[in-house]
């Protein structure tokens, strides 16, 4: 906490959304990215749920890491601890959503159990520790990564919907062409890095 690197939280937010996009640059959370991107509506729902869970788990994991794990000298256990915190957070968010926001639960609730095991979520918490982010930086990092993941899966689903009727060579249908699209999208996202040189 003491020697926080002087990166503005806003830059972290933009960078995590675009130039170091979780899925297109770090290739985390690929399984659901590939499998749940057939329809725009579902993909967008999952994207929003991921963004929501990323923010909440980053907040809880930051607090638990800095106020429990570090004082007890248990840093080497952070993988285990982060995972159980994520699992509990997702459970509680689902219950709260079902109670207070039933409409939202209808749209996102069915995705929540899938998210517990999404590696992008664990990735955020681990990066936040490795990069030594402060609280505000971590929260914006989580939010930016979440929105970036949503942007990426929505874009992929939109492309796949457009391509739905197209004839493809045998063997390229389904996941294969999806990986190719993902690769091209990743090139485009890496292109964003030029913007920050100017900034």
């Amino acid at each position, binding site marked *: 906490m003491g020697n926080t690197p002087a990166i503005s939280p806003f830059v972290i937010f933009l960078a995590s959304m675009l130039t170091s996009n979780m899925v297109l640059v770090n290739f985390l959370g690929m399984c659901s990215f590939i499998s749940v991107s057939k329809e725009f509506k579902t993909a967008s729902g999952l994207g929003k749920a991921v963004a929501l869970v990323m923010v909440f788990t980053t907040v809880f994991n930051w607090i638990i890491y800095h106020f429990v794990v570090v004082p007890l000298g248990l840093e080497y256990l952070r993988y285990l601890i982060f995972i159980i915190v994520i699992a509990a957070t997702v459970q*509680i968010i689902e219950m709260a959503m079902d109670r207070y926001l039933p409409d939202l639960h209808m749209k996102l609730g069915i995705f929540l159990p899938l998210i517990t095991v999404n590696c992008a979520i664990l990735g955020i918490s681990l990066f936040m520790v490795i990069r030594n982010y402060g609280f505000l930086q971590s929260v914006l990092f989580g939010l930016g990564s979440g929105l970036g993941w949503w942007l990426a899966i929505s874009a992929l689903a939109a492309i796949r919907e457009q391509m739905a009727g197209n004839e493809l060579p045998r063997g390229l249908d389904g996941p294969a062409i999806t990986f190719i699209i993902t690769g091209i999208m990743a090139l485009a996202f890496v292109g964003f890095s030029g913007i920050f040189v100017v900034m």
Partner: protein
Amino acid sequence: MSVFLTVLSLSALATILAAVVVAADYKLNNYGICAIDINNGTRVLEVNGGSSLLTSLSSQKVFIPSACGGKATCGLCKVTLVESAGPVLPTEEPFLSGPERDAGVRLACQLKVKHDLKILIPEELFNIKQYRTRVRRITDLTHDIKEFEFELLEPGSIDFKAGQYVQVDSKPYDKVPEPVSRAYSIASLPSEKNKVELIIRLVPGGACTTFMHNHVQEGDEITFAGPFGEFYLREGGDELIFIAGGSGLAPIRSLILDILEKKLDKKMKFFFGAVRKRDLYYVDFFRELAARHPNFTYIPALSGAVPEDAWDGEEGLITDVVARHVEDAVGKQAYLCGSPGMINACLQVLGKIGFEKKSIFYDEF
């Protein structure tokens, strides 16, 4: 020392998180007492909200049919909601037709009770009870089919229509830690009110059939709920065609015995399809029945007889045998029970013979 600290702190953290989740469950999943109004005030139940409608109703001894036990795979537990209780869930969609959705039909196993509900259920479901029984007799019918006779203990008698089924509850055993309930048709007569006979084929890997075959002994206590089902004798039809395969014989046996006992003026033909002679059962029983009753004909058929079976009866697929023996559909009704494959094949053949959809009744498993 550090090992100890690691284990301790990890367990403590997990315990605290578990406690938080349990507390959240208690607080967030607690919807207080909800009133469920059934059939416009015929009965009003007060239940603790937060569970599915199916569980809430069965906790109050109102049993809605459900073959899958609440996993949204059988689609049997349909109830009609007088007032909407929120949108249809994605898990329910495959089971509800357009008109059903418009009428407010939902799956009771997927609908969570969060506030007062007004529902409509078929009147006869009130007749459904949970029965405590003792297994009086287990008989091997074939290498994989057993007959179970249950003596009813509490309540001591059952009212059902021939052709209906009960849902037997298994108990935890071996690697199946949860009780499951599965539907089995009643093979005995409705007039024998103190007992129920079921015919159960051992399904490889089946949770309930394995329990019944390998873990139940004569004298054991078993519970089941019932009677359920829409498969019973309908008005009309001077001649009845019965077609069954495997343990599908059970409801057909009950129907035939019921009709003979009531001396109804109907001609009956019973086709029973099996692969080999070792898959046939109750042959002498039905032959003797046919000898005593001129209006009843029994036609067992083998589709894969081998020379050692020394079979001199009908041979071929049951559909071909039916086509050979039933010329037209005039004044006839057909009742089928068996696997979905057998039923579909029979529906096609009966359609070709001239049977209308409304004179064919079936129960598939």
